[in-house]
């Protein structure tokens, strides 16, 4: 063996090893990637394509161009669903965020029983919305506690789920109940990062509780609040379970949301092309909301 052979032999061995590594890497990724291509990536592309056709199960699709989108713009049901969805989101997100901040501040410091309170407030988050909806339907029914409470407060005593103006606030109550514990937990983690010295210094300088919250605690929570706002907006835009069980979109389409329309068009009337177009519109809207929110965060920094 001549000395000059040594490095080249080593290089060949290295190359063989690298090739083996690559093969193993691919094999390990493959199962997840195939499932992913078939059921996430492929469908996402197909959804864009279907939106331009009149596809329905068992028929050959015809290319319609922008017809579905034109139909959507002329469809009063779509506009009403959009309005309902936006109104639901605009009501749910701020209320839920405010509740999350409030509850996080209340269970922030360690005291006896604090763990139990945190567990209680997180319990609705792990509860199925369908189950919650069955109970809340009773709570809002004419002989349920909500109507009687409202009567006692001097507010309309009627069934909120039966009133076109009150059905959305009723759904907002359930949505907030089901998710404020999530926001609370996220914010709680951030609250641990607020430097204690800073708060103490502010206190010795005579800052009151509100000032300490406004100028020391709140700036620390800001990024987490934006994160929550994005998550909650997306979730609210996609509200379905509660609508399906509690109202079926009624009364008079007052709780008929976008995903509910997508469901009805796709799986009740089998207008899969039109339903896909609604899905694409939904995607564009969530994307726009996410971009706006990202832009706001960027500007704040």
């Amino acid at each position: 063996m001549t000395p000059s052979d040594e490095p080249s032999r080593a290089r060949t061995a290295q190359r063989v090893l690298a090739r083996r590594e690559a093969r193993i890497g691919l094999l390990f990724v493959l199962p997840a990637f195939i499932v992913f291509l078939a059921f996430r990536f492929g469908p996402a592309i197909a959804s864009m394509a279907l939106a331009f056709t009149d596809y329905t199960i068992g028929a050959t699709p015809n290319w319609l161009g922008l017809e579905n989108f034109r139909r959507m713009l002329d469809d009063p049901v779509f506009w009403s669903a959009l309005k309902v969805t936006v109104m639901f989101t605009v009501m749910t997100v701020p209320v839920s965020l405010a509740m999350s901040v409030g509850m996080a501040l209340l269970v922030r410091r360690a005291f006896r029983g604090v763990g139990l309170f945190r567990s209680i407030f997180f319990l609705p988050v792990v509860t199925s919305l369908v189950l919650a909806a069955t109970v809340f339907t009773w709570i809002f029914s004419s002989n349920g506690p909500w109507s009687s409470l409202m009567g006692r407060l001097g507010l309309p005593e009627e069934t909120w789920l039966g009133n076109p103006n009150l059905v959305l606030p009723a759904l907002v109550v359930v949505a907030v109940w089901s998710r404020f514990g999530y926001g609370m937990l996220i914010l709680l983690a951030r609250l641990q990062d607020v430097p204690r010295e800073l708060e103490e210094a502010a206190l010795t300088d005579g800052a009151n509780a509100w000032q300490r919250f406004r100028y020391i605690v709140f700036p620390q929570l800001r990024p987490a609040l934006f994160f929550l706002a994005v998550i909650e907006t997306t979730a609210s835009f996609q509200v379905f379970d509660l609508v399906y069980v509690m109202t079926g979109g009624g009364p008079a389409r007052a709780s008929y949301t976008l995903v509910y329309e997508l469901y009805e068009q796709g799986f009740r009337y089998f207008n899969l092309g039109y339903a896909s177009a609604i899905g694409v519109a939904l995607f564009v809207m969530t994307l726009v909301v996410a971009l706006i929110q990202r832009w706001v965060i960027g500007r704040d920094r």
Partner: protein
Amino acid sequence: MRRRAYQALEPSRRGKVARGALLAVASVVTLFPFYAMVVLSLKPAAAIEFPGSLLPWNLATEAYDRVLSGQNLLQWTFNTAVYSLVSVVGVLLMSAMAGYAFAKKRFPGREAMFWTFIAMVMVPYHVTLIPTFVIIAQAGGVDTYWGLILPTLANAQAVFLMRQFIGGLPDELFEAAKIDGASEWRMFTTMVLPLCKPILATLGTFVFLWHWNDFLWPLIVGRSNDMWTLTVGIASLHQQNVPLNVVLAGSVVAFVPIFAAYLVGQRYFREGVTMSGIKG
């Protein structure tokens, strides 16, 4: 001085009382629906009216007898368990494998593949719903377990989290095993998976919870009554004018496993959900 400031950050006596009162009220409001669910499910159908029926006496198991005998509830529970457990195993295995490869192996197309996963986290689930249903329907998967389970195994977030976690494990661990001549698969099962236990537990809890509570996909794929999951079955009871106590008895049966798991492994629930977000 400093010490006084330290103590003063804790609420005053009055503040503590106020905090306690607020927390007590909030807890009662939060727990009330659970209480109502359980108590009303234990009432005879005729007796449900507010507020008398919220008092915990005159209890009867009539609703449970009915829901457990007539309404396929056991079948739905079984379906839900299959849907949740098989999915947990599938997602964990595939995402651990992919995460390991993305974190520790070099192969052509690695970055492109990884970014395909990441990009899809942005796309709402409902956008891909219709084509996914078309694929499953064409393949004959409507009303089958595999049609129900397979599409939900595509979990980009799980792959991402596994890659992050395994990427944080020191390379030396794996090199030492390689020198020992361990085969890749053996190394994966005897080293990678045990090292991933914490993240697998958290992720597994979340996947389980998500499937147990999932509604829209099982609603679409399950056509016949005996392929429904608990959420679909209970929603249908709710809409069929079945008496309230029977519907709520079904809800209690569906809730008990999650509640029991929550009592035991709360930490995993919290971590899993905060890591992965909420559902609409």
